[in-house]
């Protein structure tokens, strides 16, 4: 077990290096530099431009810049935002809970609908329900997130005025960030209506971000369930005289969940990618929107640091999923 964790953790190092490389060089391939962007359309005196580039160390050869950056990262220094002058790590810490809150809600939403839908579709194979669920999930999987988000806003916010268009909570409320999770903080704050306002703001982003995982989970659950239901041990369970519910919910589901959990693990990365788009559409103040803004502002340190931190999060979550996998599948439980 310890050996397994150590192997996995040691794999993080090359991945980590890869992320720094990609983030560092890709953003520099984009034309323009932070100074130009800051100056905006007014332009900037070329001499002043040179001076500022020198101040930020952006005049040095690119590999030297990378070396300096890497040595700082290894010392735990992710640098400061060129725009706000705030340390990147602090900004990340402040914004990350919003993203986690959204991602968690999305994955819960996907599980709560996707699992039962997949199970029922498998049990009623080839029924109208089955074809309906599979058709809808294929559509859901194929829809571009930004388009889906805009359509939902048009329908629910503009047409029917049911949900707010953007943000995490109504501007009426000021909630002191205790945990960073608004659903919890609003309950702690005892401000009337704040919790519901937070919930309202979560609905559309959750649906938008949860749609792809929902489709993937529903399809995966269905096919895993179909496969498991044909297994010999299900016949054994029936021969024992167990109730249909117990056979499906315990004997079959436990085995069908194994591939589903793998897929959920793979979806974590997709979820953060989706969060970047979703947060932009709904002006959700999380790390996704923060990264998009950083790209537009050519805020090199934020982009590099943000990508790196997100990468670490995704890798850690994947490790956790792999460990959870052993819990549910005794055949691959990592011994010694």
């Amino acid at each position: 077990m310890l050996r397994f964790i150590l192997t996995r953790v040691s794999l993080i190092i090359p991945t980590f290096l890869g992320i720094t490389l990609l983030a560092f060089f890709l953003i520099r391939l984009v034309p323009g530099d932070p100074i130009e962007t800051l100056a905006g359309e007014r332009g900037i005196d070329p001499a002043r431009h040179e001076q500022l580039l020198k101040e930020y160390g952006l005049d040095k050869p690119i590999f030297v810049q990378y070396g300096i950056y890497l040595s700082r990262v290894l010392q735990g220094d992710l640098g400061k935002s060129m725009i706000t002058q705030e340390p990147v790590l602090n900004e990340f810490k402040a914004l990350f809970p919003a993203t986690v809150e959204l991602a968690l809600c999305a994955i819960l939403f996907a599980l709560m609908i996707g699992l039962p839908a997949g199970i029922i579709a498998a049990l009623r194979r080839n029924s109208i329900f089955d074809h309906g669920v599979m058709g809808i999930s294929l559509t859901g999987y194929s829809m571009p997130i930004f388009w889906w988000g805009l359509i939902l806003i048009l329908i629910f916010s503009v047409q029917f005025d049911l949900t707010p268009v953007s943000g995490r909570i109504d501007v009426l409320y000021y909630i002191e960030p205790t945990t960073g999770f608004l659903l919890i903080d609003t309950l702690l704050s005892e401000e009337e209506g704040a919790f519901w306002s937070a919930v309202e703001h979560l609905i559309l982003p959750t649906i938008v971000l949860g749609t792809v995982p929902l489709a993937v989970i529903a399809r995966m659950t269905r096919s895993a369930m179909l496969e498991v239901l044909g297994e010999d041990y299900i016949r054994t369970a029936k021969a024992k005289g167990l109730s249909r519910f117990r056979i499906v919910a315990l004997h079959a589901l436990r085995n069908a969940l194994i591939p589903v959990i793998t897929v959920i693990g793979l979806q974590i990365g997709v979820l953060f990618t989706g969060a970047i788009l979703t947060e932009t559409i709904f002006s959700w103040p999380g790390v996704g929107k923060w990264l998009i803004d950083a790209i537009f502002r050519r805020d090199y340190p934020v982009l590099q640091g943000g990508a790196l931190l997100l990468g670490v999060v995704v890798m850690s979550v994947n490790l956790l999923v792999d460990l959870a996998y052993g819990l549910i599948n005794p055949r691959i439980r990592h011994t010694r």
Partner: protein
Amino acid sequence: MALVEIENLSVEFPTQGGIMRAVDGVSLKLEEGEVLGVVGESGSGKSVTMLALMGLIPFPGRVKADKLTFNGRDLLTISERDRRKLTGKDVAMIFQEPMTSLNPSFTIGFQLTETLRLHEGMDRKAARRRAIELLEQVGIPSPESRLSAFPHQMSGGMNQRVMIAMAIACNPKLLIADEPTTALDVTIQAQILDLLMTLQKERNMGLVMITHNMGVVADTAQRVMVMYAGQIMEERSAADLFASPQHPYTAALLAALPERSEGGRLATIPGVVPGLYDRPKGCLFSPRCAYATEHSRSVRPELRPWAGGHIRCHYPLGDPDRDAAIQHDHPIKTEAAS
């Protein structure tokens, strides 16, 4: 009252190519404590017949019968609920592949106690004690530590013992063993058969031994039912059947046993079991039968009482008028040579 009474049982599966009849007019009586061997090639309907008795025919299979009773209870009209109270308790079944017949995600202990808690209403502790007893009875060493083992941590033979322990947990009146030794190696086969026979005698339970191994039948069964293409071809006491088979198919099966061959090439039955599309009009065995006549190819024989058992053949081997009847019905030149 017989323990099991089946009359004219048919099981059909709708397929894209039409209705596939897996079991065709099977009738059968089984007394308490009797050991019945059911033999036949793969696809002869022997397992499906027993699955129908267990109520385990998977959707969209259809079960039809004039009579289907277990211990006096009508299984054709029984409710799902009552049926579940019977299956696993009074009638239990073990299967061919012990490695895949146990759920890989649960421990042996969980799967074993589950039956006890469901049917006997035992609490966790009592069920655990009983589970240990059962594992001991089926000859599993250090049963207590095995309770927390998963199926993949045990051998096939051990898993089959666990399956048997599970099946006998609630003292069933009937145990159906569907090729219980096919997937095991030869030494383990003998052990498992011994175990089954010992348990059968101790408990005087009915035992149906489904197999395509004639040797297994000879060692265990009191009565034998030979099935072919979903129909019973011959049914009589094991001693009689092995001494003087009456159906050409049974005779051909026995002749194919290595133990019975007298050197030279091992006898085979040419051809294959008829499928969905090439089901003969007359006797289902006629295309492969050495004694087929024009009559047997056009008229399907009924199952009829014969020599202390039943037979489905126009020309039983022990019939003194047999040769005359075959001559009269115009024998067909055998295709056996091809």
